[in-house]
């Protein structure tokens, strides 16, 4: 396949993905906007006003970057896992597998779809956040880079989950039992300085802590984690998940008999 044909195939997968999640916007775009609004109302306005300052910031201001990041993580992941698993279940993944489109392009197309949905929902949640607090951006480059890298990482995670999933339960187990606890314990609602020393050390094994803090650093200029360290961790996970996802597609695991 020539480069221009490969580009057409890549573009097709992206268009298909965007068409898919915008067609079902009531399931994909609206719920995160509503649930994140509730987070801001309950944790920010109602409870947050009684909590006081955190890292010298209003509590609402402190949690806003974490909540935006939480929506990006969830939506990037769920877009790829549900779309790829749906394609497997209905059998139309075969449309791509019988065509000469390289596996790396299939992977790139689905990941780009996940990133676009993650960024779109992240933007909507950011707009919602502006109704509750004045968000400042300390460093636009860091904010943009962290957001894109995080959504790539979780789109790749969604792909691995979708490849192994055999039934609908399998695509909700990881988000429910792994992703959600890691997000909640990843410093979205608190600074890890508040934890005892032992739990601070344990928290450092949570990769989401690095993403939330890198994003918070870009937005507010404060972080529990060294920013270079955070980027290294994110890039390392992307490299690992990318290689593993590509390996799974090349071997046809979960796709070919």
């Amino acid at each position, binding site marked *: 396949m020539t480069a221009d044909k490969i580009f057409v195939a890549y573009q097709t997968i992206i268009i298909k993905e965007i068409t898919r999640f915008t067609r079902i916007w009531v399931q994909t775009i609206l719920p995160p906007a509503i649930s994140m609004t509730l987070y801001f109302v309950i944790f920010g306005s109602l409870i947050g006003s009684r909590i006081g300052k955190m890292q010298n910031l209003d509590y609402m201001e402190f949690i806003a970057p974490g909540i935006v990041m939480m929506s990006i993580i969830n939506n990037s992941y769920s877009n790829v896992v549900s779309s790829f698993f749906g394609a497997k279940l209905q*059998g139309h993944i075969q449309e791509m597998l019988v065509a000469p489109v390289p596996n790396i392009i299939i992977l790139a197309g689905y990941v780009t779809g996940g990133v676009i949905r993650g960024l779109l929902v992240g933007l909507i949640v950011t707009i919602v956040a502006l109704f509750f607090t004045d968000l400042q951006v300390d460093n636009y480059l860091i904010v943009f880079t962290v957001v894109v890298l995080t959504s790539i990482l979780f789109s790749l995670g969604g792909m691995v989950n979708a490849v192994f999933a055999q039934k609908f339960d399998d695509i909700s187990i990881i988000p429910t039992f792994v992703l959600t606890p890691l997000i909640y314990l990843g410093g979205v609602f608190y600074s890890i300085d508040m934890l005892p020393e032992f739990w601070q050390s344990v928290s450092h094994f949570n990769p989401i802590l690095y993403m939330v803090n890198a994003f918070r650093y870009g937005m507010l200029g404060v972080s529990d984690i060294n920013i270079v360290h955070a980027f290294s961790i994110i890039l390392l996970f992307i490299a690992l998940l990318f290689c593993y996802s590509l390996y799974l597609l090349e071997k046809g695991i979960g796709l070919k*008999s």
Partner: protein
Amino acid sequence: MNALDIKQLKKTYSNGKTALQGIDLQVKEGDFFALLGPNGAGKSTTIGIISSLVNKSAGEISVFDYNIDTRLSMAKACLGIVPQEINFSLFETTIEVVLNQAGYYGIPRKLAKIRAEKVFRELDLWDRRNDISRTLSGGFKRRLMIARALIHEPRLLILDEPTAGVDVELRRSMWDFLRQLNRSGTTIVLTTHYLEEAESLCENIAIIDNGQIIEHSSMKELLGKLNVETFIVELEDEVTDLQENKQYPLHQISANSIEVEVNKSQNINELIDYFSSNNIGVRSLRSKSNRLEELFIRLLSNNNSEEH
């Protein structure tokens, strides 16, 4: 040149089931080829391996001389697949299904739209282009699968039971379409359970059973092997005392119908003479089953008795 060349293809699934025991198959360019076999014989596994949806255990496959191990992308570009099961996205419109498929082959959307219109019109799908695919009837779903497989203008089209569950009228119109497609140069490999369909459409044939090719020849040669044909004779009046005929074994199946076996070397006029001389009026004479069907059943039963 062979459109399809399969050498010593073997497949054993992870559960230990051997689906293919080393098959050889050649399909010439421009051929209309039938691959027949009972359920579970290995037809779909063979098609799955050709289309790279199933990993082979051993053997080689070339599509227009492109080996699928070394030049898979080129082989795929030559190949169009119409699978047995409906497998397009049920939430997309019919035109989206086909345009997306074109995109996976690197066909720009502008060109894909022109091709989609042509193939949709040929298959009477044009008026349904904006329908959500799940709302189509079974027949239109089958046509959509064919349209999707043709959008990149493949040189080899493989159809796995394309007319299953389709009414007679639509089946006949699909036959016309496929004949026309074959005449325009597309090589076609067809699997079907309707043996009348294979006999009517195909020039060459292979029969697969238990993962082995048990027959591979032209349709003409194969039908020439049919030594005995069974006819149903409808009589004008009821017959109660049918005389035994050593030349033609007769079996009375009702008061006014008889089943008779006619050997290839025998003349059917003699059979008619026999009825005339016995004052038995014949209303009609028809073959009990399709000739290929009769041969197919005999070949399979021979193969099974050899194995036992």
